[in-house]
């Protein structure tokens, strides 16, 4: 390992305790014989401590704290009265969950087919078979739904407000983050939550604009690794041309993948994604 490799690739992660055991051994070996990098390490650690100790910390104003506690009391009171009413009327507590229990009863045929494809991929992948750069079943799930939704999208989450959609996704243990393509001219049409065959939830968020449509799909990652082949990166997300569509794969959380699909040419699609970033 040379000095520039250490500084560019390992220094920060070293100070943050984020190196693997093997990397740490390699790094320590280099530092043992390099006085400059040892000094650089001490400096990096000093910057970290300085930030930790001296970045401003604000106290929550007492009034804000008080109003939060009062709001928690109100939630407790509402939950208690809902629980008391539930014994008399089973449907009373179903307000938020109602739309979902209806959907749960009928699994879409395309969803079922897509789920089989996902499992075929997982089995292949798990058995150590080669991962084909040409067949990415989770992409197929997203694309098939994209085509279907472009013709007709029926949301099953009642509200199309980002905060409500986020709530609904989180209630099904899905990521609560919603993309915002407003600044590229897309508006949020709505969202739907379905289930794959294994019972895991999948969320679709559909966007429509003058230039086209975008579908965001959240599902369990099923151990998916980024496909091989030509890829372009934008803000840490990987973009691919796949079956004639522009596809962007990102990992909102370790367990989940987020797949964005659009008919837009790759360049414009990547521009939409870039503009959506905070």
């Amino acid at each position, binding site marked *: 390992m040379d000095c520039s490799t250490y500084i*560019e690739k390992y*220094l*920060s*992660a070293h100070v*943050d305790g*984020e190196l693997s055991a093997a990397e740490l051994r390699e790094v320590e070996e280099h530092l043992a014989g390099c006085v400059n990098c040892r*000094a650089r390490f*001490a*400096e*990096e650690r*000093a*910057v*970290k401590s*300085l*930030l*930790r100790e*001296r*970045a*401003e*910390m*604000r*106290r*929550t*104003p*007492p009034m*804000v*704290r008080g*109003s*939060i506690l009062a*709001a*928690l009391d109100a*939630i*407790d009171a509402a*939950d*208690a009265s809902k*629980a008391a009413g539930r014994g008399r009327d089973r449907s009373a507590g179903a307000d938020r969950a109602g739309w979902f229990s209806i959907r749960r009863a009928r699994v879409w045929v395309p969803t079922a087919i897509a789920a089989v494809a996902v499992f075929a991929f997982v089995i292949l992948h798990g058995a150590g078979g080669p991962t084909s750069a040409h067949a990415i079943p989770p992409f197929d799930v997203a694309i098939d739904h994209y085509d279907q939704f472009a013709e007709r999208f029926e949301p099953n989450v009642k509200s199309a407000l*980002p*905060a409500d959609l*986020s*709530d609904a996704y*989180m*209630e099904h*243990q899905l*990521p*609560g*983050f*919603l993309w*915002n393509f*407003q*600044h590229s001219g897309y508006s949020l049409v709505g969202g739907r939550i379905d289930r794959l065959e294994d019972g895991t939830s999948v969320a679709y968020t559909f966007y429509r604009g003058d230039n086209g449509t975008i579908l965001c799909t959240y599902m369990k990652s099923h151990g998916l690794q980024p496909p091989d082949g030509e890829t372009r990166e934008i*803000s*840490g*997300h990987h973009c691919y041309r796949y079956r004639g569509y522009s596809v962007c794969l*990102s*990992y*909102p*959380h*370790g367990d989940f993948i987020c797949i964005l699909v659009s008919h837009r040419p790759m360049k414009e699609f990547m521009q939409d994604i870039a503009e959506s970033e*905070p």
Partner: protein
Amino acid sequence: MADKSGTGADRRRRFEDEALPHLDALYTMALRLSRNPDDANDLLQETVLRAYRFFHQFESGTNCRAWMLTILFNNFRNGYRKSSREQPAASAEEFERKLENESLRAEAGGSNPESILSGQGMEGEVETALKGLPAEFREALLLVDVEELSYLEVSGVLNVPIGTVKSRVSRGRAILRDMLASFAKERGIIPS
């Protein structure tokens, strides 16, 4: 669904024990994100109430601060960043004045160890340098260095791959180091 967190009173107690101690950290981050105390108050309140509603999903033993920061960042982004893009931003002086008022009010409410430090030492320089950093570097650095989250946790909070967290921390800290270096060297905080 059975209430995993037990009875209402039980949930409330657990929430007060595990989640509410992070209130000041969340408030500070809310102020940094919304750059306006009124929006920060709304963002904080919305975050805490959502965390309470979804508290049954929080896995005991994992990092509650990271979990709540994830909700905070999601709320901020889902709110379509109204303060930074849709509304005219408050002028810099107005923003500073509001921050000052908030800070004085908080100090009047009780002792605050951080406030004893402010105005002397490196606060000014550290904050000035932080404000000069691009937002994506600043957020990653604050989450790692101040909130003490792991790269994996930060990747969840910021909704970016772990490799991106790593590079943002690395680049952000390099810029910060350059900005602070001359001052820190004068003070002997870092070796010259």
